[in-house]
């Protein structure tokens, strides 16, 4: 997989003194963070620490009120379109259309960026979604299968930075392990992964680095 070689060696995420507001509340309160390419970053911290907002800022969905940031080599204020082209986000919701099948969902998101059948087929087999599963409307899938479909969209879109908001939430332990395998695989093929989680232990096994947030700033950073 080619994960945007054109952006060179620039870090996946570089935020300086980032302040982001959610209707006047500073969800990020002057946060500094640099993430190298190929890392798996686990964001931990209590509810309301700013994890979700941090992910949305990196996806170019929430603008910065102060400070500045570069994501995948583009400035998030002036180069929002480039940022978005290079990242993919899976929030609590998966961004799927319930009535469409796995294949149709993938084809839709693929067609939006001009990806062909090959990419879609490749992504489906990579996520174990081929065969009968591909023809079922995603409404009828398990939470784990839906999550895998969402990841397959990131693969089709060739997202170089995966922003995942609690990807383990609502899954059984098998599906959680599956998620971990997928993320490791993605990172080993060049993608950078940034995820939030409440599970400290899982972070130890999966992540290359744990970043602890509280009060909208980084309060702990360890390999």
């Amino acid at each position, binding site marked *: 997989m080619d994960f945007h070689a054109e952006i060179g060696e620039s870090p996946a995420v570089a935020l300086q003194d980032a302040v982001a507001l959610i209707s006047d509340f500073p969800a990020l309160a002057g946060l500094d963070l640099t993430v190298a390419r190929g890392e798996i970053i686990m964001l931990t911290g209590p509810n309301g620490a700013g994890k979700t907002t941090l992910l949305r800022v990196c996806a170019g*969905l929430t603008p910065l009120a102060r400070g500045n940031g570069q994501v995948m080599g583009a400035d998030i204020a002036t180069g929002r379109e480039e940022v978005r082209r290079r990242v993919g986000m899976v929030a609590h919701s998966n*961004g799927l259309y319930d*009535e*469409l099948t796995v294949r149709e969902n993938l084809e*839709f998101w693929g067609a*939006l960026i*001009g990806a062909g059948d090959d990419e879609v087929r490749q992504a489906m087999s990579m996520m174990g979604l081929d065969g009968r599963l591909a023809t079922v409307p995603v409404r009828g899938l398990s939470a784990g299968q839906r999550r895998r479909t969402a990841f397959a*969209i990131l693969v089709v*879109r060739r997202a170089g930075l995966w922003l995942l908001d609690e990807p383990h939430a609502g899954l059984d332990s098998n599906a959680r392990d599956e998620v971990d395998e997928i993320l490791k695989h993605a990172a080993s093929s060049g993608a950078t992964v940034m995820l939030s989680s409440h599970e400290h232990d899982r972070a130890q096994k999966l992540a290359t680095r744990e970043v602890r947030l509280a009060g909208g700033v980084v309060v702990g950073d360890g390999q």
Partner: protein
Amino acid sequence: MSSPNRLRVAQIVFAKDLRIERRSKVLTSQIMPFAVVTLVLFAFALDGDVILQRTAPGLVWLAMLFSSMIIVQRSFAVETADGALDALRVAGADMSAVFLGKWLALVVQLLLLELVLLVGAVVMYGIELRGSGIVLLVTSSISATCGLSAVSTIYAGLASGVRGRESLLPLLVLPVASPVLIGATRAAEASFGTGGTVTSEGWPWLGVLSVFAVVFGFGGSLAFGPLIDD
């Protein structure tokens, strides 16, 4: 792998919306029955064959207007239910193309609904289609539907994902859509010959409706991106 052009994106979104509709069958199993019930209720409220025949075009378009509010809410509920709208934004989809696709998908659905309402009005209100009015009826209905759908899509996009959108949407759409109601009703009256009108009286309304559709179709494709994406 090259990014598809605007028309292609519009086509993808259009096909996606109609496919979802075909699977979920909300239009045929919920909205069409609702619209027909409305026609029946109008008959109870107005009580009288002559009045019903006289007011049929207006009642059909009132039922259209209210049903369209439900369809357009649904069209955006599909996008927000599982965060697809955010995903569209992150995917960098051209929002004016998304507008175009959703607009045309809504036009198709509303035209189907209108067909049902017209048949309902012929059956229940005793109006008669006449040969000379058919062309006017078809053209005016299409332009009225295009205008109404454009306005609804713009404001439904604005209201999507906001608290209180169910009540905000009619407040925003209905005043703006009033020329559509006036024009479509008068044109339909002229094509049915309601109240002794002749077909030629309807043509100026086709002008109003077409201008409306063009203005808000164009305005919507410009405005939709900035409205949704920030």
